[in-house]
Every structure is written in structure tokens, then in C-alpha cells.
């Protein structure tokens, strides 16, 4: 793991979690979630941009880079693991466990933390939990199948897609892309549907392995 300050790690995790709920993540959302002033959020974001973990067009939405995403997932996994350990094995109350997990992350040396997480991961009492990876439907390759986790389209388009059988939980497979690169062809509910990439990007899916 990169040698990141623990507060920057918190940022990464927060961005990851917001990006799974909203289509875009803004400084305002982050400030609200972390309960930190917007100015200091901006400062930290520029640090993350320098580390190439986050991308941000001037004052635009914040996006994780692929390394950033990887890091964020690791941070979250560690956080959840600690929390789970405190609650399920030691029997600590959830509210206290949440706080203490944070404190532990911030005070223990990275080396001890990594070893602890490895130990917990190997322990049979604590089942492995792999975080869900979601991506835009338009990012799927030919032949890949995904399960819909979220539809970000709104209004008529959302209703249309929904009525044609693309809903949360539906399996959808990419059959191909038109010769000029757009639109795409999918298999869903046992029939063939075609959507432009713009529209497919509004559907989030979890890629089936």
C-alpha cells in the first residue's frame, strides 16, 4: 500500500462510497460527508490529484483514477474488516466499533495494520468480503455479462428502459458494437436490445466473473 496519510485514505474511501450512490462526486458532497470545510477538502483533493489517485477538471466532479480506485477499495476493505472484527469477534457495540476502527486506522503503523488485516483475512471466523465492483454498462466488453445495480437515467428514458425489462438485478450481456462504434447490442430478458453508449453509460452494472 502507498504511504498515504490516514486522512487522505479517508478521502479515498469517501469518494468511493459517494461514487457508488451518485453519478458524480463534488467537493460539496465530500465536505458534507466528512464534515470538513470545503476549502480544506479542495486542498486535500489537489494533493490526491498530484498523487495521481484522483482526477478533477477545474472545479468539476471528482473521479478516482484506476490506482485511486484500487487504493480506495483496499482502505475500505481494511476498515470493514476491523469493524467486523470488533463487532463479531470481540462483541463491541456497532457505534463504538465504527469509531474505534477509525481511530485504529489512524494510529497504528501501516506495517502492523497490514499484518493485522492479513491475519484477520486468513482467520476462518471472519468470512472474506470482497467489495462489489460496479461499472458503466457501456464499459463492458463484447461477451461480458453484468447485473444491473443502479439506473442513473431519469424521466422518460428511465421508464422506457425499465419497462423494457432493464431493472436493478437484471442480467445483461453485451453482444456487440455497431460497425461505427455506436450503438451497442445487448441480450436482456431473452431478447436483443440496442442502446447508444450515452444511454448505456447511465446503467451501472456489477460485472459477472
Amino acid at each position, binding site marked *: 500500500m502507498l504511504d498515504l496519510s490516514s486522512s487522505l485514505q479517508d478521502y479515498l474511501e469517501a469518494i468511493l462510497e459517494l461514487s457508488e450512490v451518485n453519478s458524480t462526486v463534488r467537493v460539496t458532497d465530500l465536505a458534507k460527508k466528512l464534515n470538513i470545510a470545503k476549502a480544506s477538502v479542495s486542498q486535500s483533493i489537489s494533493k490526491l490529484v498530484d498523487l495521481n489517485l484522483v482526477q478533477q477538471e477545474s472545479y468539476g466532479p471528482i473521479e478516482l483514477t484506476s490506482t485511486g480506485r484500487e487504493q480506495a477499495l483496499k482502505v475500505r476493505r481494511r476498515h470493514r474488516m476491523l469493524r467486523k472484527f470488533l463487532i463479531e469477534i470481540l462483541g463491541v457495540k456497532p457505534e463504538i466499533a465504527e469509531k474505534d476502527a477509525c481511530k485504529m486506522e489512524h494510529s497504528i503503523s501501516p506495517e502492523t495494520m497490514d499484518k493485522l488485516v492479513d491475519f484477520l483475512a486468513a482467520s476462518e471466523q471472519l468470512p472474506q468480503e470482497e467489495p462489489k465492483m460496479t461499472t458503466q454498462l457501456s464499459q463492458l466488453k463484447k461477451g461480458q455479462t453484468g447485473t444491473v445495480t443502479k439506473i442513473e437515467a431519469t424521466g422518460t428514458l428511465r421508464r422506457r428502459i425499465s419497462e423494457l425489462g432493464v431493472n436493478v438485478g437484471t442480467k445483461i450481456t453485451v453482444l*456487440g458494437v455497431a460497425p461505427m462504434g455506436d450503438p451497442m447490442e445487448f441480450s436482456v430478458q431473452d431478447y436483443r436490445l440496442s442502446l447508444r453508449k450515452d444511454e448505456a453509460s447511465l446503467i451501472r452494472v456489477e460485472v459477472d466473473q
Partner: protein
Amino acid sequence: MKDSKELVVALAGNPNCGKTSVFNNLTGSRQHVGNWPGVTVERKEGTHIHGDVALKIIDLPGTYSLGAYSEDEAVARDYLLFGQPDVIVNIVDSTNLARNLYLTTQLLETGIPVVIALNMCDELASKGIKINVPLLSQLLGVPVVQTVASRGRGMEELVEKTIAAAGNPPAKSINYGPDLEPDLEAFVEELKELKTHLNPRFLALKLLEDTEFVKDIPLEESEKEKLLAIQEKNLERMRKKWGEGVETLLAERRYGYIAGMVKEAVQEESSLLARLSVSDKIDRIVTSRLFGIPFFLLVVWGIFQFTFTLGDPLVELLEGFFESFAEAAGIWLQNIGASELVSSFIGDGIIGGIGSILVFIPHIGLLFLAISILEDSGYMARAAYIMDRFMHMLGLHGKSFLPLLVGFGCNVPGIMATRTLENKNDRLITILINPLMSCGGRLPIYILFTSALFTANQGLVIFSLYLLGIVLAILMGMLFKKFLFKGDSAPFVMELPPYRLPTFKNTLLTMWDRVGAFIKRAGTVIFAASILIWFLANLPVGVEYASQQSLLGRIGSLLAPILKPAGFGNWQAASALIFGVVAKEVVVSTLGVIHGVGEEGLVGVIAKTWTPLAAYSFMVMNLLYIPCVATIGAIRRETNSWKWTLFAIGYSLALGWGVAALIYQVGSLLGFA
């Protein structure tokens, strides 16, 4: 004693479910095509007699839901809700059960008796699917009949069950779950106070998923306000509980309900991937990166060859026939002592007028034959899929490509081919810019003028005119999109139906419907315009046909000064342009008549009396100004609006004059005059 009765039966189903086959089977030749009031959507109606019951069958446009996303779907929805049919026959593609049953779940909620025709049952075995029909019928609470409409199987039973179903509303309705039902019930209770024939539960569900729906319900003002208040209150309450996604919650629950039903009643013997059908295998080549575009071009070339190579000789034959018929009639009329005016009226006016409609029939018939084969086979959707990227750059839909391309042959079938476009705005734009595609009728004009004045680079000059048309079509399309049809372009959410072999009967019936509609609707406009031009050329009584003294000549003289900036400000050119409205190729023969020479001598006259610049500007004018009457008739028929028809005439006239004048003026400045 049984009493004879009439039942109104509405056919509803998804696109490509075989609905048209069912309709054709039930009604045979006892059908007619009209328009739904106020819109351009076709209304097909027919009758089926069974014993002493007459079934009046209404074929509704194909729709995936009662969500009314396109004009077609709105027609289907409005008829089902407000038209009060006795029975709905819901045709369901049994090979694509889940999505087809979505509409069914909505139909069951209307409270109108429903009978389900489980169509294309013959394809189930090869796909390894078994459907337990009695169980499905029990689960849905309505009769289910197995049919293979393309071969006429199961029709008898369908009719019997339909007659029996009249007066028996569906026994079941969908349960939306213990968490959602109480909220729905509360909504329904409040709606029961309203004075409407609509089923309150159905109304509640519709209002919940489509907030715009209220506008379309025919209700008194006071009742409507009450309804709006109830809707507002309930929506807010439910949004608090369910979040913004409440509109799609119902769809999710319906699909959940369907999934449960399918699990119980359907046995799939093979996995999804093992059922990778013939259709997918065809698509691997036909829509592939490598062969997709070449194959598409091949198909387009095939359509052109089919339509014009086969059609042109037929058109010539018809033209020849009408010419000799008009001539013979003229001689016969003179022999029985009719005046020259009367015989010219009958010969040139009436017979010529009818002829100018009929000469279009071979092209239109063949083109529509080709198009209905493509539609029925499933390739049409692929064509749109392949061309969408390109058309989207121009702000249009993939389906706009073919109508524009066909326009190069003749704008009339091009405009009629826009029917495949669901989005009203896309369709109007495609219709409005279609006349800018230089059709075959304009070619004789280009040939005349280029052989007189541009002998060195005839091909290049003609090509530049075609190109100018395309460029202007793109520009005008973008302008219309920006200023007349604001708003987002229609999303490209399109089914790619499985490939199927078109049936002879359906293909021919579809073609015949469309040709018939053309003759009836466009024909009247063409005929009237031909007669009008004849009068202008022959009045006042005694003038020589189309001379400067005729009304036509006088109007030409009047218009000439306006045309001066474009370089052809003489009455001959103006009169020829007026005649060109009948059909663009008539410009050539008119110039011949006016100059008193045959078409052969005309090249010489033109070479002496026109400058190359004026000739080019005149050709541009011919490319762009007012579409011919047949095209005007088609625009009127397809837009169902005189406003848009007049707009098409007006803008093309302005564009033609503007561009011609620009070319002439700039050319003069540069010293080309």
C-alpha cells in the same frame, strides 16, 4: 334463438409479435386502412364473421407498454383506455415471454376482458422451451390460446375464446407486494370519488408511473383539478417513502411478478447461451465490424436496383399508354365534334392528371415491397443500428437514413418510408429535408443544361448539384432541429427482433395498403394541381397553350422580375418553373413548347440564349424550389398537416431563390457572367 351481435375487439401486442399476421388471418380482404383522428398513425380495421357474431377488429400499433413514448404507442394506449373495446386480444410472442407479458400485466389492469394469443408456438420446440399453457392461463386469470399466426393455426379457437370472454373482466390483478399495496389502496380509495369510467386501481397505477398522463384524460375541468390534487398528494407521500424511483418501482415489481410466473409455467431445457439462435449467428456477420457496412450498402444497392431497374420500364410503359390514350381520346373527341378546348381538357388535363399519379405506382409499389420484406425479416432494425452513429452526428436517428437515400430515386417513396421512424420530430425533419435529395425527375433538367453549356465537365457539374443538395439537407436538418424541434433527440432504445422469413401474404398486403393510401391521399392533391395548371395554361379562352398571353405566361411575366437577381428573369423560365411543380422533368418539355422547338432543338436554343452562370443558377433553383405536386401530396399525407406542407413549400422556395441568387450574384462579381 341466438341473437346476432357485434363485438369490438382490439388487437394489442409488442412490435414484431406477429400481430399483423393475426389481423390478416382474421379479416382477410375485409379490411381497410385509414388514419387515427388527428395523427399520422395508420388505423387498420376489419371484420370477422363467426356464426352470427360480427367481430369488428381494430389493429392497434405495436407497443411495449401503455407508457405512450411515441405517437404510435399513444394511439394504442388511448384507444385501450378511452375507446372501450369489448375484448382485448393480446398477442404474445411465446419465444420472448417475459418482455411480452409486461404489456399483458398492464392490460389486465384496465379491467377490460383479455384473451391471450400465445403466438409463434412452432418456434418453441427448436429453442427447447416448454410452456404449460393451462397453468399460465390460471396464473394470469385469462384464457390463453396457442397460435401460429403465420400459418393460420389456432385462429378458430382464438375467435371462440374471444367471443366467450366478452363481459368477463380478468379475474386477477397483480399484487405489488405487502409493502406497496397499502399505499396503492389508499390512492385507489381517493380516486373512487371521481366520475370516470376508468378502473380506479388502473388509474392509480398509471398516475403513479406517468405523471404526465393526467393531461390526456378526457375529464371535466373541476374533476381534473380534483384528480391533480389527489395525484400530487399521493405522489408526495409515496416519494417520501420510496424515493424518486417510485415511477419505476411498478415496472420492477411487474417484472418480478412475471419472473415468478415464467419460472412456474415455463420449462427451459437448455441454457440461455445454448439457445444462441440462428438469428445471433446471422448477426455475427451482418452487423459485424468488418461486414456490417459492406452488407448494408449491398442491401441499399439491391433496393435501388429492384425499385428502379424493374420500375423504370413499367413507368415508361404507363407513360406511353397514357400518352397514346390521351391522344386517342383527343382524336375521338374531335371526331364527335367537341371543341379543341374540351378535348385538350380531357386529354391533357384529366387523363394527363390521372397519368401523373399512376406513373408513380410502379416505383412506390416495388419500393414498399422491398421495405416490407426488410421490415418483416428484421433487417430494417439492423440498418438503423448500423447507420445510427452517422445519423446521430446530424442530430437524426439511424432510421432516417433509408428514407433520405430513397429520396435520390424519388422523394415520394422517400417521404413515405419515414413511417418507420417512431419519433415525431425526427420524422418531420426527415420529411422536410427529403426534397433536397436530388430525385430522378430533376436529372433531365441537368442533362439539358449541361449538354448545352457545360459539355467539357458535364459529370462534375451534375455531381456538384447532388452534393449541394446533400450539404443543404444536412444544414437545414440541423437548423430545424435547433429552432423548430428543440429538446433532446430521441434516445436510441430499439429492439433488434430475431430474423424471420417474411410471409408472402403479409408482405403483399402491407405493400397494397401503402400503395392504396398513396393513391387515395396523395392522388387527390396531384390530380387537383394538374387540373389547375392546365387551366392556367389555357385561359383566357382562345390563347395558345402555355403562351405568354395565357394566364400561366402572364404569371410568368409577373414573376420574372423577382427571378432577375438569380439570373433568369424571363417569362419563359418563370413559366417553366411553374410547370415544374407538376413534375420537375416537365420543365424540359415546357421550355420546348415555349421556344417552339422539340427537345432535340432545345439544346441549341439554350446554348444561344443562356449564359453558363445563369444556367447553373437555374439548375440550383430546380434542385431546391417547391417540391413537385406528388411530393407535396406525400408530405401532406404523411404529416397530416397543411401547416407543415406549406412550410415545406415555403422554405424550399426561399432556399432555392436565395441560393440561386447568391450563386448568380457572387458569380457575376467574380466575372463569370
